[in-house]
C-alpha cells in the first residue's frame, strides 16, 4: 500500500465523517436559530385593564350593620377572573381589601340598620389595583311604616300604646361570607402577561423536526 492509497483511504474516511458532523452542526444551528426567532414571541406582552372595568368580589367574612364597625377593613377575593379579549388577566381568587364606610345598627322607632362599604384595592403581585363603585342595598328591613301604622291605630284607641313603637327595631343589614358584590376598577392598570407556554415551545418543535424526529413526534402525540 503506497502513500497515495493511504491518502485515498484517509480522505474517504474523512469525507464519511464530515457528512454526519456537518448535519449535526446544521441541526444545532437550526435549533439555536429557532430559539432566537422565538424570543420575541415568548417575550411578555403588556395588557392594560381600562378604568371602570366591572369586577365581582366575594367577601371573606360576614359583615353587617350591627356586626361591623365604621372604619374597619375587610378582606375579599375576586369572584370571577378579569378577562380581556378572551385572555384571563387577573385570576379569580385574587385577594383585596375594603373598608366599612358606615355601619349603624337598627334602632328604635323601626329605623333599619345601615351598612355602607367601599372596595379599596386588589393585590396583584406586589402592586395594588384600586377599585371603586361598590354597590349594595345598604339598609335592612324598615319597620318605621309599622310604627306609624301602630301609632295611628293607638291614637284612636289607647294613646299610650303608641309608645310601643319606640321599642320596635328595624331589621339589620347582614351580608354572609361569600356574598358577591359588584365594583369597578378605579384606574387603567397595565399588567405584563407571560406568553402562553404552548406558543413558546412550538417554534422549537417545528425547526427541530429535521434533526430530531422522535422529539417532535413525542410532542405531537
Amino acid at each position, binding site marked *: 500500500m503506497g502513500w497515495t492509497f493511504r491518502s485515498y483511504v484517509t480522505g474517504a474516511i474523512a469525507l464519511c465523517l464530515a457528512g454526519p458532523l456537518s448535519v449535526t452542526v446544521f441541526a444545532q444551528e437550526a435549533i439555536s436559530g429557532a430559539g432566537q426567532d422565538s424570543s420575541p414571541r415568548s417575550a411578555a406582552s403588556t395588557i392594560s385593564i381600562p378604568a371602570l372595568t366591572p369586577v365581582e368580589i366575594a367577601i371573606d367574612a360576614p359583615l353587617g350593620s350591627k356586626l361591623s364597625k*365604621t372604619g374597619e377593613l375587610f378582606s375579599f377575593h375576586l369572584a370571577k377572573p378579569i378577562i380581556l379579549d378572551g385572555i384571563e388577566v387577573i385570576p379569580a381568587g385574587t385577594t383585596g381589601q375594603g373598608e366599612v364606610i358606615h355601619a349603624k345598627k337598627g334602632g328604635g322607632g323601626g329605623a333599619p340598620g345601615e351598612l355602607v362599604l367601599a372596595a379599596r384595592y386588589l393585590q396583584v403581585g406586589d402592586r395594588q389595583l384600586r377599585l*371603586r*363603585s361598590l354597590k349594595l342595598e345598604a*339598609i335592612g328591613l324598615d319597620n318605621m311604616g309599622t310604627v306609624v*301604622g301602630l301609632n295611628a291605630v293607638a291614637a284612636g284607641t289607647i294613646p299610650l300604646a303608641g309608645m310601643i313603637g319606640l321599642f320596635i327595631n328595624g331589621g339589620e343589614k347582614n351580608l354572609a361570607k361569600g356574598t358577591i358584590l359588584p365594583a369597578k376598577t378605579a384606574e387603567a392598570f397595565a399588567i405584563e402577561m407571560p406568553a402562553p407556554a404552548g406558543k413558546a415551545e412550538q417554534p422549537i418543535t417545528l425547526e427541530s423536526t429535521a434533526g430530531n424526529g422522535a422529539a417532535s413526534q413525542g410532542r405531537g402525540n
Partner: protein
Amino acid sequence: MKKSTVRMLSAAIAVATIPAAASSVMAADKAPVVIPPPPAGKGQIVFYRTGTIMGAAMGCAVNENGQKISSLGAGRYFLLVTEPGRHEYTVKSEAKDVLALQVEADETQYAMCKIKMGIMAGRPDLRPSTEADFVKSSTDRLVDAEDMGPGPGALRPEEVAAAVAAMKAKG
C-alpha cells in the same frame, strides 16, 4: 270587641293610609324629576325627604363639618356636588344622626331623611337610599335657595336648571 271600638280602629287605619294613596295618585300625574349628572371629576348626592305626615313640621337640616349645607323640608330634595371620597353628614334635633358615604367621581348617590318616632319629638334619620326609592317617593320639589348654605355644594334651583338644560343639549 265593641262596635264603637271596631269603628274607631277602621277610621284610624283609613286615616293612616290616606297619605300613601294620595301620593300614588299624585305621582301618576307628575312628570318625573330629572337629575343631571355631576360635573366631570366630581361626585353628587341627592338628599331627599318624603312627604309623610309623620314629623312633617320638623326640620331635617343636613350638615357637614358643623356647617349647614341645606334644610330639607317634607317632600323636598336638593343636589350636593362634592369631591370624591368619604364624607360624613349629620342631621340633628332631639338626637343626632350621622351618615357616612363614599362619594365616587361622576356618580350620583341618594340619601333619604325620615322622621322617626322619639320620646318628646320626632328624630331625623338620615340613611343611604337608591334612585329607585327616590323615584318611588315622588319627591319633586327642590329646596328653596334661601334655605341652602352657608356650607358649600348644594346646587341652587337655577344651577340645577342649567345643568339639566346642558344635559338635554348634549343629548
